[in-house]
């Protein structure tokens, strides 16, 4: 293992009028590998959905268990139900398997070829062909470098705009060019995938002619963000909690009025609080030398949870928290874009003035926020540590 880590994200849009997607993405993480499988089932709707679900599930499970690609393909072929209309069982697939964060194996069958961006530029990797059970499979192995971005897609992506906006649709070359132009080393895999998939949807004029899926996998350095939230239940533990918090490498965020006052006393540095309201719901931020970000507590963290949940789901507020500079947006950027590992230092002191049923800032609400936030961040693939004081 090295200090790199793998960030994965994807987005699918359904063919216009379909309730189910015929494309399926499976991601399996084990201690030594990350496996991404993107399968595109023949046709659309239920039938395609079943084919791609079976294909991606079987392959991702088998590959993660270190079985041979030949066995996987043979298993898929003998398992898939045969389509009555077309007389074939068929689902195309792309597999990207990262081992020890050191190299990637790319195995491709009939999907548009995986794009690799190295430092933001298209990188042509070597491809070997081989035939398994009568199917031509493309295989490659690539040594990883920091900031490598792999982009896999279903053929809906390269058919976007065919006949409508463009004669021949959006070719792979155009997607390469688009991805290069939109490259930003700070962008997450989810942001990259969403960006391209949304562009396809635009070319389809919001009425996709086919299921369209884009998955991205990004190689990045591990980065730690530490967040201090609330004073300890026993006032004697303040200096212990602060010492442990500031001993951690990475960035430091302090959340909470009393908490930041204690921090400023502990560090012996003055706190400067601003009165600029950027978002009327979120109190202004403050500054303490030696701390990367100082915010109010429960209301701000509540805003963060809203943004993080949206990011894990519909991702409608992405632009909002990337442009606004209030406490909640700033923390969200740190947790989503910057951090791979997050340490929460949560103090369990009860502020009697907050235990008012009319105020949405009571102790239970605070603890629930921490739980919900760490759960959602874990689902997004972050390494989360929570310590209570």
């Amino acid at each position, binding site marked *: 293992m090295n200090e790199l880590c793998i960030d994965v994200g994807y987005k699918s849009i359904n063919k216009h009028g379909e309730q189910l997607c015929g494309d399926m993405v499976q991601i399996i993480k084990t201690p030594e590998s990350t496996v991404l499988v993107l399968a595109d089932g023949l046709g659309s709707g239920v039938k395609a959905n079943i084919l791609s679900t079976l294909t991606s599930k079987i392959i991702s499970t088998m590959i993660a268990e270190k079985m041979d690609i030949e066995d996987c393909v043979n298993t898929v072929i003998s398992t898939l139900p045969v389509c009555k209309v077309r007389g074939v069982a068929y689902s195309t697939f792309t597999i990207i398997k990262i081992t020890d964060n050191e190299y990637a194996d790319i195995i491709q069958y009939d999907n548009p070829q995986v794009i690799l961006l190295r430092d933001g530029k298209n990188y042509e990797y070597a491809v070997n062909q081989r035939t398994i059970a009568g199917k031509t499979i493309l295989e490659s192995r690539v040594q990883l470098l920091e900031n490598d971005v792999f982009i896999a897609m279903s053929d809906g992506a390269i058919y976007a705009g065919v006949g409508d906006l463009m004669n021949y649709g959006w070719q792979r070359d155009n997607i390469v060019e688009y991805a290069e132009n939109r490259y930003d080393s700070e962008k997450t895999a989810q942001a990259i995938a969403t960006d391209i998939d949304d562009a396809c949807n635009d070319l389809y004029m919001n009425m996709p002619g086919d299921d369209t899926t884009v998955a991205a996998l990004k190689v990045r350095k591990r980065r730690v963000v530490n967040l201090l939230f609330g004073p300890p239940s026993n006032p004697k533990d303040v200096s212990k909690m602060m010492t442990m918090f500031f001993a951690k490498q990475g960035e430091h965020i302090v959340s909470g009025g009393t908490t930041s006052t204690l921090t400023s006393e502990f560090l012996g540095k003055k706190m400067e609080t601003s009165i600029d309201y950027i978002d009327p719901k979120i*109190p202004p931020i403050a500054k303490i030398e030696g701390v990367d970000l100082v915010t109010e507590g429960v209301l701000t963290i509540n805003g963060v949870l809203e943004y993080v949940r949206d990011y894990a789901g519909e991702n409608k507020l992405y632009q909002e928290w990337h442009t606004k500079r209030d406490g909640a947006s700033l923390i969200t950027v740190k947790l989503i874009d910057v951090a791979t590992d997050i340490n929460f230092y949560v103090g369990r002191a009860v502020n009697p003035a907050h235990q008012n049923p009319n105020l949405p800032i009571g102790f239970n609400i605070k603890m629930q926020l921490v739980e919900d936030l760490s759960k959602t961040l874990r689902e997004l693939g972050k390494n989360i540590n929570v310590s209570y004081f």
Partner: protein
Amino acid sequence: MKVTICIGSSCHLKGSRQIIEELQNLVKENNLTEKVELCGAFCMKNCTNGVSVTVDDKLFSVSPETAKSFFNSEILSKVN
């Protein structure tokens, strides 16, 4: 004269933002920007009686409704 308004969680919910806006406007209208410095603070340990405001270290409890009379009695009349 230094006027500090608490913007901690509890005071925020009781209307810090409206009070800050009101005071900012009043300070401007009365041409006091040179003489009165408005600033924020996290938690003055007086959460139950928020919104907490200090004028040169003397503590007051203000609400959005009383902001104007507070300005007249504690700032405008004393600043000169």
